[in-house]
């Protein structure tokens, strides 16, 4: 930052802070809102200044850049404020009340930042602006135009901060907060969302550079500088996927790492289109072709990011997903949150595709056609496969919206995604195996056939092995065959590349990772054994050849209940310890599977449900409510409270109807105030069995009753579990790690390329 920039920055910040400080003093704003306003106004100033600069007033860039820095400071200040109010438990803020509580450990308080949508938008704006600051350091004729386009979506995000930031006052006085959804209370919550947000936000950079290049008619010069950014998006988004997969597998107990849920699909589609872009850029760099395709893909990737945000955040899919955020109608945005997100999509699509259309006819055609039998032709086909995957997944996740146009809104089952992607995965494997063996521009078919012999042999051996191992259905077997082919080809090319220097081998390493991962996915998701079984406490049961004994519940160090199951497996004996506790917040059981790991497979034991009562069990009755279990129909009329000296007694008025025979019942519940001792006296049913009061809620008059079945079950509690095996799951993790290593290596390689270019005297 030179002196002029510093002066301009200060000239913007000082009056703003003075004015804002005055407003805070009068109570019209709080510090967080001030920071949001500062960011929004700076973003407006930056936008107008860059616009002026684009129209020829180049001196305006100084103001624009200064305003952009102030905007970053504002957002940083907003983030600092949010963490400050969270950590100091200021429950007069609605957001603090909704997503944190006093008893939460510090790292969850820290993660409560992105517990709700308002904080998420703030984080999104902050990350995008930070990436903008990095982009600002790039000395290139396109930089300022790119920053102008980058600022457009950020402007809208900072607008949300102003209209509906996380700094709204609570509607009432709270002394404690709700806390974070227990589903999200995991170590991964502190790291996984920010990584995904960085990935999501990063797609804006290729979009902005592409728009700038179109505007400035620089149809080739953008390729080299955009490559590190595009590869960065690939790498960081993949990191997010893998973290999400590990979280789903190890913590959420889905039994899998990927569920084709709208949220997952939403982050997958821009990533697929971005990978198509990366490969297209490589082709354009060498042969000068695919110019229009690359512009299209750079714009599309960001439009898909915004579209996915719309689908998952607006609540349009609320009836179709377990994962999507619920709709919030009280957003004070014009047209609501959904309308705002649609606005974002429309803005990016209109600007990006509009520019592309206006320049479409003047973008020069390729200086040379794609060679008929060449690396670029196969990469072009690979791009097509990625785009088809992207399109089919996008269509699947949009099914409720598409079908609504023709009739009742419909959803597709998750099997849709497996069905449509399977043939494409085969094509992908074959192309992955062929392309790296080919030279650019032209290759001799004869020479290729000789080069492909080792991979083909390896793939055939692999095919025979998996057939022998039990993968006999044609589709999965064909995918494994194609992936073995890709693995062997890329292994050879990686070795050759690393001998010539790491830069030449890094990308192929990623292909190897992807092939390994897909082989692992096929084996672990399609060929594991899976069964559900009920385990009465203390009794041995057999499942999948393992002996299981449910030994009971135990309170662990973390204060939560754990189910303890002794397992006698042929491989080894172990004690499964699966977290399983009742959550008041979700009114449901929170569960975490036990995973016993072996080199070749995992044994996955996931608690499903507690059959029969536990201390937290029983059934809640509203006053006047009737419920039926078995042949017993029970009506709870209400409580009769008696307050004596130092004690309180509640008598429940019940009417039981057993097979048409009606009897009144009066179980009681007494609390001695001095020591909190509780005595529950049950009432006896004519048919046998008892009904007792477990708890009562004096405010609402609700009663928690233990019904006969529940009383009995309490003595012999039974745990329902799902036992499954995940063969070769380690290949998934190994492939993922190799792929990530390759993506980050490739990114550094492209950064070095750009640096070297910049160091060259102009």
């Amino acid at each position, binding site marked *: 930052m030179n002196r002029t920039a510093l002066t301009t920055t200060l000239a913007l910040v000082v009056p703003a802070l003075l004015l804002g400080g005055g407003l805070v003093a009068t109570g019209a704003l709080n510090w967080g809102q001030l920071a949001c306003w500062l960011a929004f106004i700076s973003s407006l100033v930056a936008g107008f200044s860059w616009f002026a600069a684009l129209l020829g007033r180049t001196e305006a860039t100084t103001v624009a850049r200064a305003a952009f820095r102030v905007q970053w400071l504002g957002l940083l200040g907003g983030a600092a404020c949010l963490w400050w109010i969270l950590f100091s438990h200021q429950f007069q803020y609605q957001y603090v009340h909704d997503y944190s509580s006093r008893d939460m450990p510090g790292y969850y308080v820290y993660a409560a930042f992105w517990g709700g949508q308002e904080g998420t938008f703030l984080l999104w704006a902050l990350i995008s602006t930070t990436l903008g600051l990095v982009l600002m350091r790039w000395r290139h004729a396109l930089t300022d135009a790119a920053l102008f386009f980058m600022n457009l979506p950020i402007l809208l995000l900072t607008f949300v901060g102003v209209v509906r930031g996380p700094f709204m006052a609570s509607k009432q006085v709270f002394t404690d907060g709700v806390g974070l959804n227990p589903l999200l209370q995991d170590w991964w919550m502190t790291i996984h969302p920010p990584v995904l947000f960085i990935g999501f936000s990063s797609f804006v950079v290729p979009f902005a550079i592409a728009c700038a290049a179109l505007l400035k008619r620089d149809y080739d010069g953008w390729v080299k500088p955009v490559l590190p950014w595009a590869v960065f998006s690939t790498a960081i988004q993949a990191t997010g996927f893998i973290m999400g997969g590990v979280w789903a597998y190890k913590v959420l107990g889905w039994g899998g790492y990927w569920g084709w849920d709208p949220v997952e699909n939403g982050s997958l589609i821009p990533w697929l289109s971005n990978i198509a872009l990366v490969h297209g850029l490589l082709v354009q760099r060498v042969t000068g072709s695919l110019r229009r395709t690359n512009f299209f893909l750079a714009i599309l990737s960001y439009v898909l990011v915004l579209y996915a945000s719309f689908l998952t955040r607006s609540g349009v899919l609320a*009836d179709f997903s377990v994962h999507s955020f619920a709709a919030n109608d009280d957003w004070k945005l014009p047209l609501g949150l959904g309308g705002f997100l649609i606005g974002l999509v429309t803005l990016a699509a209109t600007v990006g595709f509009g520019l592309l259309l206006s320049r479409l006819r003047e973008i020069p055609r390729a200086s040379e056609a794609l060679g008929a039998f060449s690396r670029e032709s196969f990469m072009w086909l690979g791009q097509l496969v990625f785009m088809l995957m992207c*399109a*089919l997944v996008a269509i699947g996740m949009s099914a409720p919206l598409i079908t609504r146009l023709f009739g009742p809104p*419909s959803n597709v089952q998750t099997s849709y995604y497996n*069905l*449509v992607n399977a043939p494409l995965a085969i094509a992908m494997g074959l192309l992955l195996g062929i392309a790296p063996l080919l030279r650019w521009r032209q290759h001799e078919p004869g020479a290729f056939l000789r080069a492909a012999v080792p991979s083909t042999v390896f793939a055939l051996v692999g095919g025979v092995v998996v057939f022998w191992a039990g993968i006999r259905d044609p589709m999965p077997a064909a995918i494994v065959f194609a992936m073995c082919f890709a693995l062997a080809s890329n292994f050879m090319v990686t070795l050759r590349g690393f001998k010539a220097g790491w830069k030449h081998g890094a990308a192929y390493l990623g292909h190897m990772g992807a092939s390994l991962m897909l082989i692992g996915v096929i084996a672990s998701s399609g060929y594991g054994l899976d069964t559900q079984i009920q385990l009465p406490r203390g009794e041995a049961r057999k499942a999948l050849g393992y002996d299981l004994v449910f030994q009971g519940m135990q309170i662990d160090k973390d204060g939560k209940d754990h189910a303890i199951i002794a397992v006698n497996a042929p491989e080894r004996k172990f004690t499964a310890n699966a977290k399983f506790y009742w959550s008041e917040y979700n009114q449901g059981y929170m569960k975490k599977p036990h995973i016993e790991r072996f080199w070749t497979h995992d044994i996955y034991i996931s608690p499903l449900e507690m059959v029969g009562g536990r201390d937290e069990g029983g059934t809640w009755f509203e006053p006047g409510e009737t419920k039926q279990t078995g042949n017993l129909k029970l009506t709870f009329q209400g409580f009769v409270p008696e307050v004596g000296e130092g004690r309180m007694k509640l008598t429940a008025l019940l009417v039981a109807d057993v097979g048409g025979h009606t009897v009144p019942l009066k179980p009681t519940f007494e609390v001695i105030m001095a020591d909190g001792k509780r005595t529950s006296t049950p009432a006896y049913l004519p048919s046998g069995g008892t009904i007792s009061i477990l708890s009562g809620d004096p405010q609402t008059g609700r009663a928690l009753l233990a019904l006969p079945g529940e009383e009995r079950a309490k003595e012999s509690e039974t745990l329902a579990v799902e036992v499954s095996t995940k063969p070769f799951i380690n290949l998934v993790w190994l492939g993922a790690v190799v792929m990530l290593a390759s993506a980050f290596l490739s990114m550094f390689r492209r950064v070095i390329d750009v640096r070297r270019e910049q160091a060259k005297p102009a």
Partner: protein
Amino acid sequence: MSAKVIAAVVLLAVAATVGVSSFKRTMTPYIGFAEARSASGLVQVNGKLADKDYILRAEEQFLRFNLKDEHGDVMPVEYRGVIPGNFDQAVSVVAIGKFAGDHFEAEQLLVKCPSKYQAEAENQAKAGKS
């Protein structure tokens, strides 16, 4: 036409065919009870618990309840599988399955419960095998 264009056309054709057929095969329309009674194939219906007269046999993993849609139409639903623990607090139930003679046979239940603390927010629990 060059070989790569033919390859691209083949890829497109395969993807389109598989896409359309899979879409049709796995589509589960979100429909009213009247259509659900006559529909063939998997559908989804949603509604509220009509009353508290449900049959829950946890040991057999069996649940039968009456679902009421927004028009007041009531349809019995049967479900076999792991019963969602928060079933009786449900404010809204989505059942995926098909109509079988006198009741709706659900393969999967999506149960939405009111959060104890947040009146507006809905928390969802997933049941069944997906």
